[in-house]
């Protein structure tokens, strides 16, 4: 349904999606989830760099947009229930 109608996203759109994902990942209050989201975004975009045909690019872009919506919602929820004390990894600077 999306593949027929959607045209291939421009380079700017892809970059903007990437930046939005990283920016929203930063809002997670949980250390592990925040690091995972950043890392997975970078690795995901890296591995899809070599995609050439329009259908798979549009599918990957659509998937990315869905994930962005999920990350936005979950960042809010995690911050609502964040424990008062932060993880050890965020506190001590060894």
């Amino acid at each position, binding site marked *: 349904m999306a593949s027929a109608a959607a045209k291939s996203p421009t380079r700017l759109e892809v970059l903007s999606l990437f930046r939005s994902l990283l920016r929203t990942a930063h809002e997670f209050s949980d250390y*592990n*989830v925040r690091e995972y989201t950043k890392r997975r975004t970078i690795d995901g975009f890296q591995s899809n760099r070599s995609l050439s045909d329009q259908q798979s690019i549009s599918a990957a872009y659509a998937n990315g947009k869905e994930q962005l919506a*999920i990350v936005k919602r979950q960042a809010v*929820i995690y911050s609502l229930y964040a424990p008062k004390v932060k993880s*050890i990894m965020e*506190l001590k600077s060894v």
Partner: protein
Amino acid sequence: MASKFLASPIRRFLAKAHRPSASWPRHLSTAAAAAEAASSVYEDPDAGIVMKGVRISGRPLYLDMQATSPLDPRVLDAMLPFYTARYGNPHSRTHLYGWESDLAVESARAQVAALVNASPKEIVFTSGATECNNISIKGVMHFYRDKKRHVITTQTEHKCVLDSCRHLQQEGFDITYLKVGSDGIIDLEQLRSSIRPDTGLVSVMAVNNEIGVIQPMEEIGKICKEFNVPFHTDAAQALGKIPVDVDKWNVSLMSLSGHKVYGPKGVGALYLRRRPRIRVEPQMNGGGQERGIRSGTVPTPLVVGMGAACELAMKEMEYDHKRVSSLQERLLNGIKEKIDGVVVNGSLEKRYPGNLNISFAYVEGESLLMGLKEVAVSSGSACTSASLEPSYVLRALGVEEDMAHTSIRYGIGRFTTEEEIDRAVELTVKQVEKLREMSPLYEMVKEGIDIKSIQWAQH
């Protein structure tokens, strides 16, 4: 309510003034004193957490993935609509709430089935892997009780499997507990020779929760097919981590757990083969839900969560596996570089990389764990940690008592970072060195005395 607002600043003032002693409750009203006495956890962004007499400055870093795994945010996102608006009972046939719930359950079933290469009709949702193991072992043997009286299992199985077998033993069935080698793998020839004409079930777990070794599932499946014996496996730790294929392994029953694959706690799934059909006697009787195998309302949000977790696991398995393997190498090499006398329990090759069970020589286990309070690890499995006995799995491996007591199990997962591994290495090495410095045994070993030749004086 007002007393709670008073209690906290008052206590902070008192704690700064003098050591909290039996006298301070007199300064508070009785209600506040009761409230504070009831709560033994004290969390404060400045002072950290005080719990069970231990003070830590922040939440520990989590390296106990075999006990349970954190919920993936994408799984939580899939579950929440079913806790808020779509709260229907999937067995209600007459209205939208029931229909949409049922649709969600069926699609989750398909997601779980896809991960293990089964048909959705062969998946039954339960409350967890323990219930699945109970249904498999007791259910199968009770159904075939007239013809089959023998069960084969291993010494390193999960407690629920061993307990179900003990229950069967009390009812008069025969159980053979196969020994494992020092690498944790069973002897296939011993399995072959233990099979009798009246063997009703062979139960071998795919990935061990304590030591992480992977049993030779395909070979065991072949032997069971040859003798036409049903093969049950507890794949709770294996699901989503190594490729699980019910046809390749030739399993008839498989227990799956939700909270080991970054899903919710309280849900599991049982795979029951349809061709050839394996019959079980249900342990939960009632309205005949889940094909009569497990009656009771199917918990839609939990089941949807498990389905989402399984779908994610399928997509992310390769990525996670590569990452976890490199993290495990980093952990093991980091520790081995700094200290000696480090022994890995179980085979290093046939192992799921996210489970690293190490023993440190000349160090006492409980004190090591107490010193590692900033790292959430476990020694032995969570099920057996109540007693002081060393874990039966390590004993089955033939590990000596003193080494079994000092074993630590590191669990690495999808959300573990390199910095956490480095911090864990640093903390472990520091604590082990500190303990060894205090240990007279280590001094003697360094001087060249053989510990086993020492005559301990009787008091």
